[in-house]
Structures are given as structure tokens and as C-alpha cells.
């Protein structure tokens, strides 16, 4: 019984390999035929055959797993389609419902934008700081680089995310217990934590107001005033704290951004700094007028890649939200909502519409970044 599912997939893998070989040969032969009819030389015919045959695993895969699904899903997004019933044309109804009626979807959109607006800059600033620290020709650079990069490898695995769930527990979790202990010893820490709580809760209450058009929570927090000494962050237990928790995880796994910055820092010629030092520029001036501008291509890359990654966030909210269904609406991301809305009741039409809205958002925001890059990305010093 146990082996049958493996054998089944292995058999299909063998069939697939056979299919790829045959289809590659077929694509190559057709390409060579066309080349011959166009009067190509023998060598050109040979290369045409080989080129198409070698590229055809991707070409065939593109047709089956990308082009066909894309076309089908555009159509299905305009239908009411719940498996196993056939699709029925409903025009724009899915999109209208998503954008005007569906409050969970609106919450997911607001949450995702919140994570982009607050999480992305936090990630990039920390990544830059770590890269600047590592760029001081420190001993053991290899070890530190590894330590800072490891969370990227682990950060999406639900096993590691569960360790965070344990640490974020509001009463007995490591984070809050140490905050309490530190706050009891050092009054300044206590005061800082309370200020942090105040700022986070006010911001998040405002965003929850944006989600449901009801600002009573914000008013309540304002009325309660500055948090009393015993307060600690509620992390995963409150809709006010779920997004800051996710941002903390994002910052924790900023290692690949750091590596990009580090590579860019290595590419800045020493002479620039020496020349500036001779002219009497201070450290800050050198950072502001040499390092920062010359890092702007790396910043641009991190911005685009990081933004796309956050718009597609799924694992973190999935694992963090399992613990407490009550905070769900504070933590839904678009992809998490796509999964919930589509696959629980096989709502293909609705899910297709969500995925197209997501794709259009990603495209628009990426294009906007590319349009805006001329204004601030510098490839050399001016």
C-alpha cells in the first residue's frame, strides 16, 4: 500500500521522460524541415534541429503548464465555476464581488499592502546595515555571513516557523518573557516597549479601520492612552499584532538582500573614498554621497524582488494564523486568501479572478518601479 503511491508516480515519471524525448525529437524534426525549406545550409539545419530539440522540454512545458492554464483561467475568471460542475459565463461578476463586497478579500489586500509599505523598508534597512557591518574586513566574515543568510534557507519551512509560534506566545513565549524580565530591571526598556506597543497598536488599529470602515478600535486605544507598565506585545493573539509579527519574520530572513548589498559594496572602488577623505568629507558625507548612490542599483533590485516576494507571501501567515483563528482577518494575505477561498469549496472561477487581480497588481507595481528607476537609480557617480 505504502509503495504504490511512489510506484505510481515513478511510472508517470518514466512516461513523462518518454514523452519529452519523443516530443523533443518531433519539434526538432519539424524545425529542421522548415529550415531546409528556407534553404539553410546543412550546418544551420543541424543546429536548428539541435536547438529546438534541446529547448523543447521548456517549450512543451510552457504550452501545457503555462499558456494553456493562463488562457483557461482568464476565461474561467469570468465564469461561475465550481468543480465538478461545468463553468457558466457570468461576465464581470467575480471581479465586482471581489472588489466591492468581499470584506475578507479587502482585508487581504490591505494587509498585503501594509506588509509591503512597512515590511519591505524594514527588511532593506536591516539588510543594508548588516552588509555595511560585514564590509569592514572583519575576521570571521564567512561565519557571520552564514549566520545572517541561514534564516533565508529555513525561514519558509513551517517547522522553523513553528519555533517562532512557540517564541511568540504572549504569556509563556521567549520573546515576551525576556521583554518582561528586561523591563523589570531596566526602566528605560519598559518605557521603550510601551512606546512601541502604543505606536504599533495605533497604526494597526488604523489599518483595521481601513479594512472594515469602522474606527472604534482606534478610538478605544486612543481613549485608553499610553499603555500601563505591565503591558507586553500580544504577537499572534491579536489582529493588531499579527502583521508586526510577520514583519519581524521578514526582517529575520533578509539575508539574500544583504548578500546583494555586500556584492555591490565590494564593487565600489576604494579610490572614491580615499579621494573624498583627502577633500575632508566626513564619514556620513562619504556614505551619503558615494556609498548610497552607488548602491542604488542593488537597492532597486532588492526593492523589486522583495516587493514581488511580499505580494506572494503565504507560508508565514499560514503557519502563524493556525494558532488563533480569531485574528485571521488581521493576517490574511492575498495568496493565503486565494488558497482558502478557492480550494475549500473548489471555487475555480472565483479563485481565477483573485489570481488575476494579484497578477495585475504585481505587474503594475513592477512596471511602476521600472518607470521610476530613472529618477533615483544611478549606475555611476554624478
Amino acid at each position: 500500500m505504502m509503495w504504490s503511491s511512489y510506484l505510481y508516480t515513478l511510472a508517470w515519471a518514466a512516461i513523462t521522460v518518454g514523452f519529452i524525448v519523443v516530443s523533443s525529437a518531433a519539434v526538432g524534426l519539424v524545425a529542421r524541415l522548415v529550415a531546409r525549406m528556407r534553404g539553410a545550409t546543412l550546418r544551420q539545419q543541424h543546429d536548428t534541429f539541435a536547438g529546438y530539440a534541446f529547448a523543447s522540454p521548456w517549450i512543451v512545458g510552457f504550452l501545457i503548464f503555462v499558456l494553456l492554464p493562463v488562457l483557461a483561467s482568464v476565461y474561467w475568471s469570468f465564469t461561475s465555476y465550481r468543480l465538478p460542475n461545468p463553468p457558466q459565463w457570468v461576465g464581470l461578476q467575480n471581479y465586482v464581488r471581489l472588489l466591492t463586497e468581499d470584506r475578507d478579500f479587502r482585508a487581504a489586500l490591505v494587509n498585503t499592502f501594509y506588509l509591503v509599505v512597512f515590511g519591505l523598508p524594514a527588511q532593506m534597512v536591516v539588510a543594508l546595515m548588516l552588509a555595511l557591518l560585514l564590509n569592514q574586513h572583519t575576521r570571521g566574515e564567512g561565519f557571520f555571513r552564514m549566520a545572517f543568510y541561514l534564516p533565508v534557507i529555513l525561514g519558509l519551512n513551517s517547522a522553523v516557523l513553528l519555533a517562532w509560534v512557540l517564541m511568540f506566545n504572549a504569556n509563556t513565549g521567549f520573546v515576551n518573557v525576556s521583554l518582561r524580565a528586561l523591563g523589570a530591571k531596566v526602566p528605560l526598556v519598559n518605557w521603550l516597549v510601551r512606546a512601541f506597543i502604543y505606536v504599533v497598536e495605533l497604526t494597526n488599529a488604523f489599518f483595521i479601520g481601513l479594512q472594515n470602515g469602522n474606527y472604534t478600535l482606534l478610538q478605544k486605544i486612543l481613549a485608553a492612552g499610553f499603555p500601563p507598565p505591565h503591558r507586553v506585545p500580544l504577537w499572534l493573539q491579536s489582529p493588531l499584532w499579527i502583521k508586526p509579527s510577520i514583519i519581524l519574520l521578514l526582517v529575520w530572513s533578509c539575508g539574500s538582500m544583504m548578500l546583494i548589498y555586500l556584492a555591490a559594496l565590494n564593487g565600489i572602488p576604494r579610490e572614491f573614498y580615499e579621494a573624498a577623505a583627502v577633500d575632508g568629507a566626513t564619514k556620513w558625507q562619504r556614505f551619503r554621497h558615494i556609498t548610497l548612490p552607488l548602491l542604488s542599483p542593488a537597492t532597486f533590485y532588492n526593492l523589486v524582488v522583495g516587493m514581488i516576494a511580499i505580494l506572494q507571501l503565504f507560508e508565514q501567515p499560514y503557519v502563524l494564523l493556525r494558532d488563533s483563528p480569531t485574528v485571521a482577518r488581521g493576517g490574511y494575505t492575498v495568496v493565503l486568501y486565494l488558497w482558502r477561498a478557492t480550494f475549500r469549496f473548489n471555487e475555480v472561477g472565483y479563485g481565477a479572478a483573485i489570481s488575476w487581480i494579484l497578477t495585475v497588481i504585481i505587474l503594475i507595481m513592477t512596471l511602476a518601479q521600472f518607470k521610476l528607476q530613472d529618477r533615483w537609480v544611478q549606475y555611476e557617480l554624478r
Partner: protein
Amino acid sequence: MVEKAYEPSEAELVLLQSRRQRSLKWQEVVGRTGLYTILVAGSVVMLFPLAWMVLTSMKTYEEANAPQLVWIPENPQLTAYIKILNDMDFLRAYANSIFVTLLAVGGTLISVAIVAYAFSRIEWPGRNFVFFLMLSTMMIPFQALIVPQYVFFNKVGWIGTFNPITIPGFFAGGAAMVFLLRQFMLQIPKELSEAALIDGASHLQIWWYIILPLSRPALATVSTFLFVAHWNALLAPLVYLQTKSLYTLPVYVASLVNPQQTVQPWPTIMAASVLTTAPLIIAFLFAQRYLIGGIVLSGTKG
């Protein structure tokens, strides 16, 4: 009359210089100490969740859920490991994860290497167009395809099997990986394959005997990326597997937390987490330099 500016004597100059050097050195010592303090503190923060995972897995249930923080378990014990290793579903999930990852990484790696060869070592009409098409598919988020692909796999009866999370990779899944490998293969001198072609070798032979051995570092990078991606994958297995006996590790381990209970069996969960994470860490330690090279390559030349 021009007043002569004060000129320090030789001895004074030496004294001044040594004093300046001493203060510079002093500053440097302070700066370096601060730097290392921050770096060490940073790594502690970054690695802490892992340490906490291991520590918790060796605690008793009472220690793990105690209101007073227990740093180091009083009597470190392996009860949690014994418990999770006797959990047939966990072992099954482990076997499933190994099977799925090996098959998907193997199939993807070979097909990606074939396609990258076409885009870097052969001149053929339409190459630029097809390459551009491939790069533009990177703009389509994987999540946008999962809905229609689900319908497609449902039609052919593949839901509830490992096929949807392994087979698509055989078609050179992952344009970024093809791109990375192509960049690497472009750097291999053209003369190598030209000479072999004149000697009558076929492209398949050149690919296998010349290009693949020379691309080993890039292949290591790609396989590590693929391994990490498949070992961590959550969304696709959640959507396609649907039966507990087919769950991969991330899906199964996530299901160990029961939202209905207030007290979770944390030591057991963390023992499962440690065992799930171990292959990743081992792979990372072995392939570290390839990974870091790969990220920089795809970032700076992309």
C-alpha cells in the same frame, strides 16, 4: 618683514605623530570591539530560533509550557524524539518528502541543464524570441497558475498523488534556474564545443562530456536552490496532496499544532522541527559557497 611661521622641531614632530597614532589605535580598538559585539549579537539573534527549537525539543512538557522561562532543560531528555520517531505518520511524511524532493530535483536539474544548453551553446533561429518568452514567464506568479493547473490535474485524476508536485518540474520548471545556468554556460569558451563539433561529436555528446562537467559549480548551485525550494514547499503540497498518508513534512509538521487546544505538545513538535530542518542545515553547510555565488550571479547580472 615676513614673520616666520612656527615650525615644530624634529623631536616634537615625532612626539605628535606617535600621540596621534596612539589615539587612532585606541579609536580603532573601540570601533572594532563595538563592531564585533554587534556582529556577534546579530548572529545570536539570527540563530536563536534554531537554538530554541533544539532546547525545547529536550524539555519536559511542563518545562516547555511553564510560565517561568526554562532556558536549559534540567534533565535533557530524548523522550520527544522517541515519541515522534514512533509516529508512523511522521515517518511516512519524512519518506514522502525525501521521495518528492529527490524526484523533483533530479528531473528539474537534468531538464534545466538541457534547456540552458540550447540557450547558450547552440545558434538557432528564434532563440532570442523563445528566450525572451521564457524570461517573461517569470512575471507570472506561480500562485496565478495554481488554480487552472488544479483543474487540469483534477481532470487527469492526479489530485491525491505526488504527480502534480514532481512531474511539471521535468519540463525545465523554473525560468530563473535556466537563466542562472545559461549565464554560466555562456562563459565556457566557444572553441571547446567548436573543436568537438568538427571532430564529429553530436550536441548530446558535447553536452554530456564537455559542458556538464565544466558546469559543476553552477549545477551545484541550482540543485541546492531546488532542494531548498522543494523541501520547504507548502502551498502546492497543501493543494494537491489532500490525504494524510501523502503529506510532506511541512504540511504534516504544521498540522501537529492543534488550534483547538490551549497547551501544545511543544517538545514533540520541536523534535519534529529539528528532524525536518536537519537536512536543510546539512545541505546549507555543504553548499554554502555555491548558494552565495548563485544569488550574487542572478542579482548582479540579471
